[in-house]
Structure formats: C-alpha cells, structure tokens
C-alpha cells in the first residue's frame, strides 16, 4: 500500500517535470557539456552529482538553527582573517600612543595596544572586531539551540548517535575557541579570566601546577600565554572545527535530514525541496542574512569594549568581572560552591575549585554524550528513527531536558549574581544561598512539572482525536440546551498526530533467577533496566487504537447531521470568534 501511494504522490508532485526539454537540447546542456565532461573524465564526479545535486531537504524553521551556527563560523573565518592582519599577539611591554585618549602614555602589552589600534586607528577595525565577537557569541548560542532542538525532538537516535557526539565536540571546541579569543586582547577583563583559568588548572590534583607552568611558560602571567593561545585560536582549534564540521555535514547528507510527521511523511521517506536550486538558494540566502544580522549588531551594539578596562595588571580587577555568557554556568558553579579543600600526603585537593570549575564542564558533557546510549538501553529501541518526536510524546526525555536547562539557568544566574544584585537591589549573599538550595530543588520541580504538562498535552491530543476539536459553534437543541459542536480534525492532521508515536519495543521480563534458583548473572542489571523503563514510560498516554478512531468517526459523523452545514473548508473558530483559515 504505502509504496504505490508514494509513487502516486511523487508523480503528482512532479507533474511539471514532463514538460522540461531534454537536457541535451537546453542551453545549459550545450554550454556545460564540455566543462562537465572534462571534469568528469578526471574526477568522476557525475555519479556523485546525480545522487546529490537534487537531494531533498525537508523544511522547518527549527532545521535552520544549525545553519546559523555554520554561517556564523564562516563569518568568524572571514573577519578573523582580517583581524590577523593587524593584531600582534606579543606580551612585550610598550607605551600606548594611539588615539584613545584616556590610556595615553600607559604601559601595556603589545597585544593590548594592537587591539586598541584595531579599535581606534584602523578604519572599520572596530566593526571587524565587533563582528568577530558577535559572530562568536552567535556561533555558540546557535549551537546550543540547535542541540536543544535535536535533543527535544529525539533526532539524536539511531542512526545519528555519532553525529550527536560530533556535535558535542563542536560545542566544546567552540567554547574553547571563544575562551582563547576572549583572552587575546590582554585587557584587564581577559587577564582576570586567564587568572581564573590558571587557578582552575592549578587545582587539578597532583599535576595541575606542572600543567600551569608548562602552559604559561613559568609563573602566571609570564610572557608566553597569549602567543600560545593565539596559535590555538587561529590554527589548531579552527582546523579541528573545520574537520568536525565537514564530518557533521557529510553524515547529515548520508543519513538524510529527519522530518516531522505529517501526511505523506514517513520513516522511510523524506519530503521537501531539492538542494538545487531551492535549498541551495535558501541556505545561501540565509548566509547573507546571518552575516547581515551580525553586521547590524556590530553597528549598533558595543561588544567587549576593551578600552574601558585598561591593560592587564595582576593587582587590579573590576567590579562585574564576568566571563562571556557561554562560560557563565561554570562561573556560577564556582561562585555558589561552598568552601571545600583537603590535603593528603602533601598534595592539596581544592575541591571548591576543581568540582565546579573543571567538574561542571566535564559532568555536563559526559551526561550529554551518554544520554542517547542510556536512553536506548532503557527503551531497548534499536530501530532507525527518521521521524521526529514531538517533545510531549517523550515526556521523560523532555522533562529531563528542561531539568537540565533549569540547572544550567540557575548556574547562569549565579555567574551574574553581582550584576543582578546591583541592578535589582538584591542581597548578594541571599542570592548565593538561594541558588545553593535551588540548584538541587529547581531541576526536580522542573522535571515534575514538565512531565505533567507533557502528559496533559498527550491527553489533549487524544481527546481531540477521539472527540473532535471544539468548533466554537454553539448548537441549541430543541429543548433549549446549548452545546458546542465538535468536528473531526482533517485527516492530514489526524495522521500527523497518530503517526508521531512509534510503538515501544518489547523487552522480555528479566530473569532474576536461573533454572537452578541461583541469582542470574545479569539479574540486578535487568532489574534496574526494568525499573528505569517503568520510570521512563510512566504516565505515558498513548495514541488511540484503530477501533477507537473508527468509533470516533462514527460518533462525529452522527453529530454532523445538522441543518446548518459548516462547509468544506471550515477549520473552527478562533477565541475571538473569527473563523480560522488554513
């Protein structure tokens, strides 16, 4: 059944094609035949082109979030190349004599002086610097929202687990690139950031001090760290990023993009526009839009005005010292962690630095990396998934995601607790005490509420499917009673709602004891799995059965026998009483 339906749809959709002229007779065919032949005889690209030039990509706004990150990265490369023309990553001392008056005659590093020159004495230099910094902010922000989209729709499931891990690698590298770039201008803020990074490195048990001395070329701050970070920032990290981005995209092409359920969209096909020309044009156009938004931000919003901070000096600091926002959660963890440290055999373990500093990053990325495999183990689901979940249809996953976001957000607040205290007239210490408690309570509350909301939304879907949607049309019965008329959803919408939830995979009940009554070797593991499975599916409210839908159809058909016809296009009435239109 399905195959013929697709073919039918395909030919229906492609009915314009038959009118195209055969390629040999077109202008393009005549013009390009030579060059294409020349290339193909050497590279054999035609086989690849045949498969990929008209590759289909599904369309949805949330599928473009990763693209924002990709295009921001391209803007970073372009602006970064320009910046290297003027930036001098040297920590040698110099006396500033440039245009910025309040720092005139101040001793500073060459790196800071050249960053000031870019800002004030290179025409358009400030714009480039700001575009580079805004693009960096956007790069990481877009990766995060893209990751959230992938998480909440379950797009990381088989066969895409490896691409999820590559994505995590990209996010890690993006943060490292951001931090190394933040440190380069050698202003007071970036130096303070390096000071904190040095403290975090030194907190690594046993070897931390050695690592710090090797990285900084001796004691902090030394005169090595900025040239070394510069190398990492412009060569090592971008090269790794490029490689991983290539892998990420190749896997995307190989797996084909996931799609949301809907009429004609199944786990076996992909519906959308061909890469050439529509998708290429949309993606290419989006590049210019991302570039343009970055340029707009840079024209109207200051980002990291390094001149206000002055040169780095280990004896100076400014109120409101914060890292860039993407490090805010680690900074918040550092701020709210209680004092904890112990000594053992002459080695010191500064846990109040180690756990929130390096631990926060490590824990976050380990949890994210492990989740697809943990979920798969719990559900026992080894099928390929190309249809996306609506977040409500995976309540436990969604609730876990929201709990994680809550913890992240609370740490984020912690990272800016001084600015929040000042701006809103709050007590700094009270915010910290509050966060120490809420870090544990908040995610639990968020989990419970989110899962409840998801299940309620599932029930609502079920309700609409089996009883129709509320039309907003009030019927008055002959005996004077009023009731709201319900109408069945369009079949397309019914299909989209019911095909969204694939059946769960059966797992055999765990054998706790073997035939001889001895504890089974994997008994405990199986028991844990069964318990997690019950927890994972707790409260799930499933799609109606075939019988229920048939029953609903009959019921609604009867109710539809009414003197006033709603009309074929009727879609219900909105809250304001206006008929909805498709």
């Amino acid at each position, binding site marked *: 059944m399905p195959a013929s339906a697709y073919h039918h749809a395909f030919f229906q959709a492609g009915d314009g094609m038959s009118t195209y002229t055969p390629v040999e007779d077109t202008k393009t065919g005549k013009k390009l035949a030579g060059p294409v032949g020349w290339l193909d005889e050497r590279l054999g690209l035609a086989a690849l082109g045949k498969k990929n030039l008209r590759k289909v990509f599904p369309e949805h706004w949330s599928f473009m979030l990763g693209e924002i990150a990709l295009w921001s990265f391209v803007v970073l490369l372009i602006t970064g190349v320009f910046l290297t023309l003027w930036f001098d990553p040297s920590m040698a001392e110099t006396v500033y004599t440039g*245009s910025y*008056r309040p720092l005139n005659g101040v001793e500073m590093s060459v790196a800071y002086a050249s960053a000031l020159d870019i800002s004030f004495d290179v025409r358009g230099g400030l714009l480039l610097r700001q575009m580079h910094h805004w693009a960096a902010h956007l790069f990481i922000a877009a990766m995060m929202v893209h990751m959230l989209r992938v998480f909440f729709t379950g797009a990381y499931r088989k066969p895409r687990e490896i691409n999820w891990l590559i994505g995590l690698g990209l996010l890690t590298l993006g943060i490292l690139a951001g931090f190394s770039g933040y440190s380069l201008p050698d202003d007071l803020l970036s130096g303070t950031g390096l000071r904190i990074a040095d403290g975090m490195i030194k907190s690594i048990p046993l070897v931390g001090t050695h690592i710090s001395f090797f990285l900084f070329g001796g004691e902090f701050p030394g005169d090595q760290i900025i040239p070394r970070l510069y190398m990492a920032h412009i060569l090592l990290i971008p090269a790794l990023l490029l490689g991983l981005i290539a892998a990420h995209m190749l896997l995307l092409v190989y797996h084909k993009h996931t799609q949301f359920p809907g009429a004609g969209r199944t786990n076996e096909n992909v519906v959308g526009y061909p890469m050439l020309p529509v998708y290429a044009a949309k993606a290419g156009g989006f590049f210019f839009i991302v570039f343009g938004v970055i340029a707009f*931000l840079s024209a*109207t*919003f200051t980002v990291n005005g390094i001149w206000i901070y*002055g040169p780095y000096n280990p*004896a100076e600091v400014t109120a409101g010292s914060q890292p860039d926002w993407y490090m805010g959660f680690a900074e918040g963890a550092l701020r709210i962690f209680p004092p904890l440290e112990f000594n053992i055999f002459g080695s010191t373990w500064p846990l109040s630095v180690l756990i929130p500093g390096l631990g926060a990053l490590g824990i976050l990325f380990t949890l994210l990396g492990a989740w697809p495999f943990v979920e798969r183990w719990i559900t026992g689901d080894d099928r390929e998934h190309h249809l996306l979940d609506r977040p409500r249809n995976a309540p436990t996953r969604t609730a876990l995601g929201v709990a994680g976001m809550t913890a992240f957000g609370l740490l984020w607040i912690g990272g800016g607790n001084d600015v929040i205290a000042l*701006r809103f007239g709050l007590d700094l210490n009270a915010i910290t005490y509050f966060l120490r408690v809420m870090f544990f309570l908040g995610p639990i509350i968020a989990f419970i509420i989110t899962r409840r909301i998801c299940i309620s939304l599932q029930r609502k879907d079920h309700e609409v499917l089996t009883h129709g949607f509320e039309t907003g049309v009030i019927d008055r019965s002959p005996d004077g009673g009023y009731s709201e008329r319900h109408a069945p959803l369009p079949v397309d919408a019914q299909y989209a709602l019911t095909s969204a939830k694939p059946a769960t995979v059966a797992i055999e009940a765990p054998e706790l004891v073997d035939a001889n009554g001895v504890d089974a070797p994997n008994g405990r593991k199986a028991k844990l799995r069964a318990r997690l499975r019950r927890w994972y599916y707790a409260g799930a409210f499933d799609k109606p059965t075939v019988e229920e839908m048939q029953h609903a159809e009959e019921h609604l058909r009867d109710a539809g026998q009414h003197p006033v016809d709603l009309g074929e296009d009727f879609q219900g009435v909105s809250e304001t009483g206006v008929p909805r239109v498709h």
Partner: protein
Amino acid sequence: MRTLSTRRRHPLAGLLVLAVGLLITGGLYAAVAPKAATAETTSIDDIEAGRQLFLVGCASCHGVNAQGIVTEGTDDQPGNYGPSLIGVGAASVDFQMGTGRMPMAQTAPQAPRKKIEYSEEEISQVAAYIASLAPGPQIPDERYLDYESLSDEEIARGGEFFRTNCTACHNSVGAGGALPNGRYAPSLHGVEAKHIYEAMQTGPQQMPVFSDDVITPEEKLAVIGYVRAMSTEPDYGGFSGGNFGPVSDGLFVWVIGIGGLVGFATWIGWHGTRTKKKKA
C-alpha cells in the same frame, strides 16, 4: 592622531552637566554654586546657625553633642545607630548632606544618594558647626577640583590610580558594583567633582578612606579627571548596556541575534501565500 580629544564630548553633555548642577544646587540659589565655606571663613554666627540646624535635623541619631548613639550591634552591623561626628570634618558633612545621603529616610543597609534636603548655605553652616567640634578633613580647595585643566597624560595617570584603588568596587567606568548583604558601591556618573574628592578623603559608610597623605590631592584630581573622562566617553561601538560587562552581551545575542534569526528562519520555512487558482 590625537584628534579624538577634540570631539570626545557629546554636544548635549554640557547641558546635562548644567542640568545636574542646577538640580543639585536647588531652586533657591543661582545656578553657579558659591565657593564652599571653609573653616577659616566661617563666623561664630554660622557655627551657631549650624548648631541649631543640627539639633533639629541630626541630633536624633547623632546625639545632641554629635557624640553619636551607640547600640548593641552584630558582626555585620556594628552598633552605631548614628556614628559620632566629632572629628569627621566639614568635608564629611558636605558630602553626606550635599549628595542627599543625610538625613537618612529610614534605616537601611546603606544611605542612598537622593534629593537634597538642605540649602547650600544651611549645609555650610552645619559643616562649620561640625568642623568647630574637632579638627577634621576640610572641604577641598577649588584648585584640586579643576579637572578640566588636566592634560591627557594626567588623566591617564589618574586612570592608573582609579584601576588600582577604585574599579574593584565601582567598576571600570564607575557604573558601580555589588557589596555583601545588599550593600553596593554607587555609580559615579553625575557626581560632582567636590563630592568625589570628599568621598575619597572621608570614606563615607563602607567606603575606605584614601587620605591625602597616601593619595595626594593632585592624584585625587587626576582620578576625578579620569572618572569624568569615562562617564563622558562616547559608546564608540554602539549601545553598551551600561558597561556592566559581558552579561549584557549575552542578553543581546540571545534576544536580538538568536531571536531575530529565528524570525528569519520562520519566514524562510513558512509555506507562503497560496492560491486556489490553477495554472492557465
């Protein structure tokens, strides 16, 4: 290239300063503040007038002889209901009353800057009375307040003192910062030069003292010059969100950057207007 200096001030900045000045000196007197009274020029009459004002407006907290009222305190809140004012000098009075901090409206973690309750003359009379009780810091001489005559180098030097001694609490541009238990270091924008000087000299509330012996009057003047330069410095790159550091960057990138681009993405992914007509 030193041309920046010629245009570094907003054309409206002068107006703004004037308006602030008018506000501070109040409606009773002319716009230009008279030279502040100093101990040498005050008369017995001034002191007596000041004493009368003190008894009415200040004595309920500071005691009838300005000896202070001590209550039992805790670690965080030492028990001075109103501290002793003996030896705090005219500078303290001029700062506290001249910025509206005194008299306090209510007991609070700290006295905020607010509307000034007393006229310039009354403040100088109270100052004369307090100064007569015991020697203390005097209201600074005009020549240490003339920050407009400073050279670029002197202002930059002031910046070094500012970054070493002041930014930790007041932030790099003097926007202020948070202190423990609901207290804060206030913003320095729009504060008169005289009051900045007096604050350094007397250490009001939680602020430490920076005595003239350690930070000389010339160095204080340079600091004032830098504070002024920073608060009138243009936002070269566009809106700065008050220069509170990277927190506002994060806000902008999520709201405008991600928000705006998601808007564009929604437009791109939207199916667009359709018609029921068929192709001719």
